[in-house]
C-alpha cells in the first residue's frame, strides 16, 4: 500500500507544487525518490513528531497541502495534541499518513502496532478517517485525501498486500464499496482485511452461508446506508474492537430505527495488550483475523440464531 501511496502522491505533487510531504525521519526506500525529484516539496522533520505536526499545520495555514508521514503510532498518538489543536481546531489542510496500520510491523512488537488509531482519530472534530483495504484503494484514498480540503487521517498497510480490486472502484469519501452479495450475513471490512473477508465468505458459501462483503475504506464520515437491510452484521478490522469500525457501526445502529438480529465485532480485544510475537499473518491467525478465523467466528455466531 505504501508504494501505491507514494506513487500517487508523487504524481499529484508534480501537478501541484503546493503539496508538501513532511516525514519524521522514516520511510527508507519509500520516500527517497520523492525527496530527490521534488526537494522543494519535501521536509525531513527529524525524529520529532510534535514539531513535525505543528510545522505541517504552520505550512498548511500558509497555503500548502501538507502530508505528515511516519510509521504506526508515531505520527498519530505521539503528537495527538498537535493534531487536535494545531491541525483540527484550525481545520488546517494536513493529511496524517501512518504506514503500518494494525499489526503490519508484526514482529517489531506492541510499540509498532497501530491498533487504537482509528478510534482516536475518529474522535477528532473536522477529521476524515480513511483506512483503505488494498493497494488500489490506497491509491484512490491518497487522491481523495489530497482533493479534500481539511484534515484527513490516512491509515495504510505496509507493503506486498494483495490487490483485491481488478479495476478502480468508485471511491468517494463517505462511501462504502460493495464487493459481494449475500443474504445470510453482511461483512463490513476496513484497513487491509478485505482479502481475508472475501476468502472467509467463500469458505462460508461452501457451507451454504451466503455472505455479503462491503469494503469500508472510509470510517468518517460513515456511510450509514451500508448497514441497510442486513439481519446479521459483522465488522472486521485489525484494530481494537473499541471505537473503530465496530464502534462506529454499533453507534450508528443504536440510533437507527431498525437493527439486525445479530451483530459481532471481529477485531483485537480492547481489554489488554497482547504478548504474542510474530509476523502479521501469524498474529492475524492468533487473533482470528485470517480467513479461517473470520469464517469460524461468523459460523459460530450465526448458529445462535
Amino acid at each position, binding site marked *: 500500500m505504501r508504494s501505491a501511496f507514494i506513487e500517487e502522491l508523487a504524481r499529484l505533487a508534480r501537478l501541484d507544487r503546493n503539496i508538501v510531504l513532511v516525514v519524521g525521519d522514516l520511510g527508507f526506500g519509500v520516500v527517497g525518490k520523492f525527496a530527490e525529484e521534488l526537494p522543494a516539496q519535501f521536509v525531513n522533520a527529524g525524529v520529532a513528531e*510534535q*514539531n513535525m*505536526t*505543528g510545522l505541517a*499545520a504552520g505550512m498548511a495555514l500558509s497555503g500548502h497541502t501538507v502530508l505528515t508521514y511516519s510509521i504506526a503510532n508515531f505520527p498519530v498518538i505521539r503528537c495527538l495534541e498537535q493534531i487536535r489543536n494545531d491541525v483540527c481546531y484550525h481545520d488546517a489542510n494536513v493529511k496524517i499518513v501512518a504506514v503500518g496500520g494494525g499489526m503490519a510491523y508484526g514482529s517489531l512488537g506492541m510499540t509498532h502496532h497501530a491498533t487504537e488509531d482509528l478510534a482516536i482519530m475518529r474522535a477528532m472534530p473536522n477529521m476524515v478517517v480513511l483506512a483503505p483495504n488494498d493497494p488500489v484503494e490506497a491509491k484512490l484514498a491518497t487522491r481523495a485525501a489530497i482533493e479534500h480540503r481539511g484534515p484527513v487521517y490516512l491509515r495504510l498497510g505496509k507493503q506486498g498486500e494483495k490487490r483485491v480490486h481488478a479495476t478502480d472502484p468508485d471511491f468517494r469519501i463517505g462511501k462504502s464499496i460493495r464487493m459481494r452479495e449475500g443474504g445470510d450475513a453482511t461483512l463490513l471490512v476496513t484497513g487491509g482485511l478485505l482479502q481475508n473477508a472475501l476468502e472467509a465468505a467463500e469458505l462460508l458459501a461452501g457451507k451454504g452461508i451466503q455472505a455479503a462483503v462491503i469494503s469500508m475504506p472510509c470510517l468518517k464520515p460513515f456511510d450509514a446506508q451500508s448497514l441497510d437491510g442486513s439481519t446479521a452484521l459483522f465488522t472486521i478490522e485489525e484494530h481494537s474492537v473499541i471505537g473503530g469500525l465496530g464502534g462506529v457501526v454499533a453507534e450508528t445502529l443504536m440510533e437507527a430505527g431498525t437493527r439486525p438480529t445479530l451483530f459481532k465485532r471481529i477485531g483485537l480485544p480492547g481489554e489488554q495488550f497482547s504478548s504474542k510475537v510474530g509476523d502479521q499473518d501469524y498474529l492475524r491467525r492468533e487473533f482470528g483475523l485470517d480467513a479461517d478465523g473470520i469464517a469460524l467466528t461468523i459460523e459460530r455466531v450465526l448458529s445462535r440464531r
Partner: protein
Amino acid sequence: MSELLAVLYGGGVLRVDPACPDWPERDRFILSKGHGCAGLYAALAEAGFFPLPELDTFYLNGTRLAGHATTTVPGVELSTGSLGHGLPVGTGMALAAKRAGEAHRVFVLLSDGECDEGSVWEAALFAPQHRLDNLVVIVDYNKIQSLGTVKEVLDLDPFADKWRSFRWAVREIDGHDVDAVRDALTAVPFESGRPSCVIAHTVKGKGVSFMEDKLLWHYRAPLGDDRAIAMRELGENE
C-alpha cells in the same frame, strides 16, 4: 509582556493591516503563551483590529474573547492555550515563507515555563537547520511558572546559552525598557541565516507594587480595592 506587545503592534515592528487581518504579506505573530491573551486582545483592539469596547466582554459567556488566544478574534494568528504549540507552527510558517521567497517574518512569544515543553526544543533544533532567519522567538522571562519559580521547578539557566547552543542568534534585554525592546525587535535578524531569540527579562505583575513577582497573581484577577490601587499605580483612570 505588555511592553513587548505594545512595541510589536503599536511601535511599528509588525507589518500588519488591521483593516485586512488576512493580508497574505503580513508578519505573523503567535502568542504561544495563550494565557496571556488579555494583553494581546488589548493590543489588537488598540491597533484597530476590533472595537475597544469589545474588550469589556473578555471571559464573559457568549464572548468571542476566550481565556486563551483564539482565531475567532480578528488579528489572532493561531489559537493557543496548551503550551509548546506556537513555535512548531511558527516554524512551519517561516519555512513556507522562506521556500516561497516571501518577505514576511514570524514572531513567536513564549513563556519561560513553556520552555519545559520538549516540542519547543524540537522546533528550536529545526529552525537553524533550515536557516530560518525570518523567525523570531521572544521569551517573556519573568522567572515564575505555575507552581513556583523557574529556578525551583526546572531551572532554565544558562538560558541564553541554551538557545545559542541550538544555533540561534540571541539578545537579552530588559523587557520593560520600551526603547530596548524596540531596538531589539527592529534589529532582527541578528545574524543572516539564523533565527533570532530575544530573551526579555521581565517582572511578573510589573508596575503594581503588590503584584510584582508574586505567584498568586498568575491566578487572581484584581477586584475592588485591589483593582483601584492597581489602576492608580499604573497611572490609569478607571
